[in-house]
């Protein structure tokens, strides 16, 4: 075919330019380390890289959130640990106060110590985090949750629980309300409370009692009234909710069990005529109330036989309530521990994900250096060949010879 001189130049230059373009692109890929220089280089991978970048950034954010969660939970855990040992101490004091050797003055000084522990407990319940927000006030971080009032320790927070986004699909609770930690604690044995009337003059001491037949429980209030006639001690049981008498003139033997409506309890000692004992369904009683009640029992001076019975009944009730309080705190601590464990598990899952995201991103947009450098060398050879051959071809001219 006939070739015009223009074509020789145009084709030669075009092929050199094409080689240069390719070479420059490979050079840019090598120098930036990125295979995708613009979305046009691989539109699908470019869009996917954007998505993966967001997922990676979210994952980093979730890791921060988890750190926050771990901090908050750790703080609550350490406060509750202090509360636990405080309750243990108080329990020891309550046991000590029951020692018959002690005289009123000894118990008065024990009571003074307990008052200090109550203040300490309120202080712990009002703990703040690093940012000055209260740990146990629900949503109202800036409100001091517990305060001593004439009506005892009052809670002014709410029952809100703060959650944190710990992973894309999991929100973890990072706070517990003061209600759940310190207030929602059943008194008595958890089902019913057996108490001795304050006006009792005998030495009867009532046990916490147990549930024998849960199906027979009624949830009613009951009254056990003693009468002493001619040396014979008998008692009547009355359901005060429905005002029905369940049994009358039961003979009393100290320590024998008294059973009715699915529950069973024992009374020890010698009740006097007219002494009364009541059984009522359990209600929630705050740890503060339990401690205040204990202080009142310990601080009261003893007088006579019934005084000792009163002390023992009071201490028994307090110990029972302290145990329930302790159970509640330990339950909350167990929940916190579980959450911390979950945070840890999510953290290592998140670390794994981060590596995966990095790998995916790298596969999507990073250059394969071995391949790129091989290509670079190849393109360099082609460019040199194009240049040299162009010089040769364009140098050939008939005019050289005429």
């Amino acid at each position, binding site marked *: *075919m*006939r*070739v*015009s*001189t*223009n*074509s020789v130049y*145009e*084709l030669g230059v075009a092929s050199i330019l094409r080689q240069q373009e390719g070479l420059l692109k490979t050079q840019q890929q090598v120098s930036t380390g990125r295979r*995708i*220089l*613009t*979305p*046009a*280089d691989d*539109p699908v991978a*470019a*869009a996917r890289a*954007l*998505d993966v*970048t*967001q997922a990676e950034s*979210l994952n*980093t*954010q*979730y890791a*921060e*959130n988890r750190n*926050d969660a771990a901090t908050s939970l750790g703080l609550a855990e350490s406060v509750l640990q202090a509360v636990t040992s405080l309750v243990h101490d108080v329990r020891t004091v309550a046991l000590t106060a029951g020692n018959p050797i002690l005289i009123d003055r000894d118990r008065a000084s024990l009571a003074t110590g307990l008052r200090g522990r109550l203040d300490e407990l309120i202080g712990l319940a009002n703990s703040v985090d690093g*940012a000055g*927000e209260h740990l146990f*006030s*629900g*949503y*109202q*971080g*800036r*409100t001091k949750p517990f305060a001593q009032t004439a009506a005892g320790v009052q809670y002014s927070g*709410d*029952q*809100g*629980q*703060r*959650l*944190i*986004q710990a992973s*894309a699909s999991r*929100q973890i609770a990072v*706070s517990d309300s003061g*209600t759940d930690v310190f207030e*929602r604690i059943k008194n008595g044995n958890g089902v019913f409370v057996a108490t001795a009337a304050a006006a009792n003059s005998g030495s009867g001491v009532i046990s916490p009692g147990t549930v024998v037949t849960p199906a027979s429980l009624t*949830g009613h209030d009951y009254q056990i009234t003693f009468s002493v006639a001619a040396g014979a001690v008998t008692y009547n049981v009355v359901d005060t909710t429905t005002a029905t008498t369940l049994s009358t003139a039961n003979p009393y033997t100290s320590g024998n069990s008294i059973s009715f409506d699915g529950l069973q309890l024992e009374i020890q000692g010698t009740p006097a005529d007219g002494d009364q004992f009541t059984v009522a*369904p*359990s*209600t*929630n009683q705050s740890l503060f109330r339990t401690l205040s009640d204990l202080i009142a029992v310990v601080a009261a001076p003893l007088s006579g036989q019934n005084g000792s019975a009163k002390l023992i009944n009071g201490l028994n009730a307090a110990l029972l309530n302290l145990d329930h309080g302790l159970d509640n705190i330990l339950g909350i601590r167990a929940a916190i521990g579980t959450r911390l464990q979950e945070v840890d598990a999510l953290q290592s899952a998140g670390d794994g994900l981060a590596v995966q995201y990095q790998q995916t991103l790298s596969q999507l947009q990073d250059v394969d250096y071995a391949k790129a450098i091989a290509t670079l060398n190849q393109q360099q050879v082609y460019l040199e060949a194009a240049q040299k051959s162009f010089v040769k071809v364009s140098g050939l*001219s*008939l*005019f050289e010879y*005429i």
Partner: protein
Amino acid sequence: MGNGIFGIGISGLNAAQAGLLTTGHNISNAATPGYNRQQIVESSNRPHLTGSGYLGQGVQVSTVRRVYSEFLAGQVSQAQTQSSQLDSYYSQIRLLNNMLGDPSAGLSPTLQSFFNATQDVAADPASVPSRQVLLGSAQSLATRFQELNQRFTEFRDGVNSQIVGSVTEINSLAQQIANLNQSIALVGDANSRQPANDLLDQRDALVAELGRVINIAVVRQSDGTFNVFVGNGQALVLGALTLTLDTMASSADPAKTVVGYVAGGNTIPIPESTLQGGSLGGVLAFRSGTLDSAQNALGRVAIGLAQTFNDQHRLGQDLNGAIGGDFFGVAVPGVISVAGNNPASSVAASISNAGALTTSDYQFDFDGTNYTLTRLSDNTSVSSTVLPSGAAPLSLDGISITAATINASESFVIQPTRNGARDITVTINDTGKIAAAAPIRTAAALTNSGSATISAGSVNSPPPVDIDLQQAVTIAFHVPYDGQFDVTGAGAGLPANNQAYTAGADISFHGWTLQISGSPAAGDTFTIGPNSNGASDNRNALLLGSLQIQNTLADGTTTYQSAYGQLVSQVGNKTRELEVTSKAQANLVAQTEQAQQSVSGVNLDEEAANLLRYQQAYQAAGKVIQIANMLFDTLLNLDR
């Protein structure tokens, strides 16, 4: 006889000289664009009849011919028109592609840091510094949207000025072609009937140049002139006459410059679909095929983000205890009254569902009976015979026409998303106004003896919140327990007594929804009330943060990030497609040009050979004269 030999010799000299002239002309024009090589066409002179037959009378140059193939030239110009359209589209979209692809300049980094800041507020809602960071990153997100939009506006301005430039070029080329038409007609009319080769080359070059700007149709006339047409048959050149094109703002969108032809002092727009090919066609295709939809896509992300974030934010409660307001300022749909409408006509359009928006523009018109709203990307439409109103809006894709004053056969163009990125703003500047908390909280009474628990409760969407939302409400189970409860409190619909209890079922009053689960006992009560002092409540912030990974846009199929990713991949795909097709087209141009050049192009070696050939012919013809002279001398010396 001697005379004859001299004559023949001189005719040879003249022919060789003409050959040398033409060869020299070819050599000097080897690099002239549009030049076609020329050849002399020699023929023998009419012979002289003698008794011994016909004796030759030498040579004459009958014409100078340009070596030109109309077929090949047509192929080149066709390929060139296509190629310059693709090139011009590609060079435009490449800039857009680079802008979107830059990892540090795109939308993604700011979008991510905005939501990270939202999560930080959720982690520590009472902290003023983290709230401050959220406001700051919201501001930079809005600014990034505006910056990207600014680039789009620059592209649009660039397109407009390129259109103006192209039209000027078209007019100037048309004028030059008309002038050459005139010259060629004059020369062609001369008695010689010899072709005006160089004028023809010049005109062909101009026509090819015009073809690189816009696709044209050329019709050759019997007098050798060309008529040139553009678009769907608008004459540009008629012999020596030219008609001019002009630019004007589009009647359907003042921001668009369109091409029109001037007739009788008026400029009448030429439909864009008929203006194809050439760099002008490429720019127009870039604008209608990529720029509009890309800018709309960005606007859609901005509007969708702002609207859905606002909707959630307005369900929350700020640090001062007030119900949350709008977080972002959202663009309103652009409504353009098409030229020719009565100035009193107007249309009110609003976005009723940001999640349903598309990237298309819309048209609203009235034909005297039906009010029609049409999606311009695929001409899907809804219509109604009732005048749209606030109570009965005409809606399509989340856009509602809520009022219209319109005469028959008038129309309006609605651009719901065009200015979305331009008009996004942050309306909150007080950290206390970030609604991180939920407006209500729930509680189970301490006296409850059952094991039932109450959920934290959520506020029903969409906003605005119920007027009674924060009224104190009590849920009390009947005594004795019969599986029913009474709901009491102030506000509409209460008290509601004897509600049947199903564990975990939704209980909804006053615009909130909550669940009670477990076994309640007789007399158990639960309360719902305002979340006063809820500084550490992060429930709404958590919901705001989760918007990042929710499919909120395009009818609930895509996240903000993916919607932006779609824009990037759409532009990337188109760029790649154009990169490939424009390269292929460039190859086609190179091949057809090579074919055309192989016929018409100058080969210097060939010309060098021709120089030698004609030089030798000249020398030989000179020799003939010398021989003739010697013959004459022979005669003169006969008597010696």
